[in-house]
């Protein structure tokens, strides 16, 4: 019972050439694991996440979740996007509610609405439930999107640079909230998160998958993060293991920096 990515290939045709973004990607995420995908722009980390989400057909390989072959999108792999992607004309509550009702028709309206209430409360937005996305901050919009994703009780949660557009303080608060929801509030066990942030990856994840640009392999390295949870965001910075992982990531990412090649 796990998320298993087996030999995934993905190419994008361009006018002059074909870009092979995913080059035989193998990856496994066990229940209870949070895995971060990190790498430069264009390395295919978002493409991989979309493939897992079933939003993008691949050119080879298979992805299975709990031994079920992934074929298309579905609420067992709920997603959170960088752009929040709330429906602009619905209140925060209705954004969550309608998503749950649509995703889980078997639950019935009452159960769906209860789930919506529970998670919107868990992210601290119940008192703002009747506001529309345009009338709240970006952080609140993203908290709503996180609540929406958790509320359908997915097996896996897929986060595509979820905190990239937020200011540092809001980001820190949301990171903590995400871990709390994942560990205590929900039954969701598998989390895959695409991120640009080295510190964010170390603070939140159990393993970090470092992805690289062509022509090398898609997955450059996989770095385990053996920091006990709960992790304190301040004291963890002084942990020797944190520093060690940080140095390794920096080294890997600097070596793969495509912009440096152009400069040279």
């Amino acid at each position: 019972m796990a998320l298993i990515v087996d030999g995934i290939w993905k190419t994008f045709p361009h006018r002059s050439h074909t870009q092979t973004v995913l080059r035989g990607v193998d990856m496994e995420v066990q229940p209870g694991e949070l895995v971060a995908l990190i790498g430069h722009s264009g390395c295919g980390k978002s493409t991989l996440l979309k493939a897992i989400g079933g939003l993008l057909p691949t050119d080879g390989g298979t992805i299975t979740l709990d031994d079920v072959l992934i074929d298309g999108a579905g609420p067992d792999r709920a997603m959170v996007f960088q752009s929040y992607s709330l429906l602009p004309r619905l209140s925060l509550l209705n954004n969550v509610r309608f998503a749950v009702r649509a995703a889980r028709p078997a639950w019935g309206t009452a159960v769906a609405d209860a789930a919506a209430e529970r998670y919107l409360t868990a992210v601290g937005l119940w008192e703002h439930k009747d506001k529309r996305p345009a009338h709240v901050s970006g952080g609140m919009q993203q908290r709503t999107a996180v609540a929406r994703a958790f509320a359908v009780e997915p097996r896996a949660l897929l986060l595509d640079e979820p905190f990239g557009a937020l200011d540092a303080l809001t980001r820190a608060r949301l990171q903590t909230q995400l871990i709390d929801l994942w560990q205590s509030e929900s039954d969701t066990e598998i989390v895959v998160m695409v991120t640009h942030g080295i510190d964010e990856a170390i603070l939140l994840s159990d393993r970090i998958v470092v992805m690289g640009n062509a022509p090398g392999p898609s997955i450059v390295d996989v770095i385990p993060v053996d920091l006990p949870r709960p992790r304190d965001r301040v004291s963890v910075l002084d942990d020797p293991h944190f520093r060690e992982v940080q140095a390794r990531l920096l080294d890997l990412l600097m070596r793969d920096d495509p912009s440096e090649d152009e400069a040279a």
Partner: protein
Amino acid sequence: MNDRLATLPAADQIDEKLPTLTLGRATPDGHNHPVPDPSSGALPSPPSASRLRRIGAALGWALVGFASLVALWQLGAARVPALPSPSETFTKLQELLGEPFYSRGPNDKGIALRMGASLQRVFYGFGLAMVVGVPLGFAIGASKRAWQVFNPLIQVLRPVSPLAWFPIWLVIFEDAGRAAVWVIFITSLWPTVLNTAAGAAAIPSDQRAVARVFRFGRVAYLRHVLVPNTLPAIVTGMRVSMGIAWMVIVAVEMLASGGGTGIGSYVWEQYNALNLAAMVAAIVLIGVTGYLLDLIFLRLGRVVAIEEPVA
């Protein structure tokens, strides 16, 4: 009897009715935040002194523009004696507006009735174009196949002047009034279809992804993703359509002159009768009416606009 407001209630009724007619559930929770429109006079809060000053200044500068035009007109009229002077025209305008609804036989009706006949044709043709154009636009924007079928057709038909269709409709319907309605239909169709299609095709990919991840059904997708994201583009299409339609109806009615009832045939009749002051007065009214029509769709556009999230 010199009630200048006599023509205005008609426009007000349109303004009141149209949004509720076309919007329906566009704003299900009723959260509308119309931007205060200085020209509408409907301010949501008591105007502050500075706002009054701004509006006053804007009106003042607008008057400068109009005054310049009237001055030029006066100069032109002095050189070409056949042209009616501004004062003659305004006297005539007052006279026309003083008795807007009289009807002495089929060819002798008040200015409001003539204008009403044109507006009616425009709204029939425009309404038909909405009924056909909006669903067609959705289809073209959402389906690549529909795009491949219809886009070449539209690109060839669109540059054809709507007036060129007039004889075709005339042959089919043998009635100038009905032919005019169908000319307006063609006029309004292309901007409506193309804007709707562009709006439907430009739905943010993340929003489509959300619909797929959370398995939105057809109705939920239509209601929560497709329609709200496309509505601003549809209203833009409506505004463009109405703008062109109002120009074209005058031309069609001039083309169909002889026993016509619209404001366009009125202009042509007054020209032929060498009643040029009435002709120019009618042109002034055509301009004002067109402006009011445009205002309606401008306001509608603000109502359906997607509020930009605060970052």
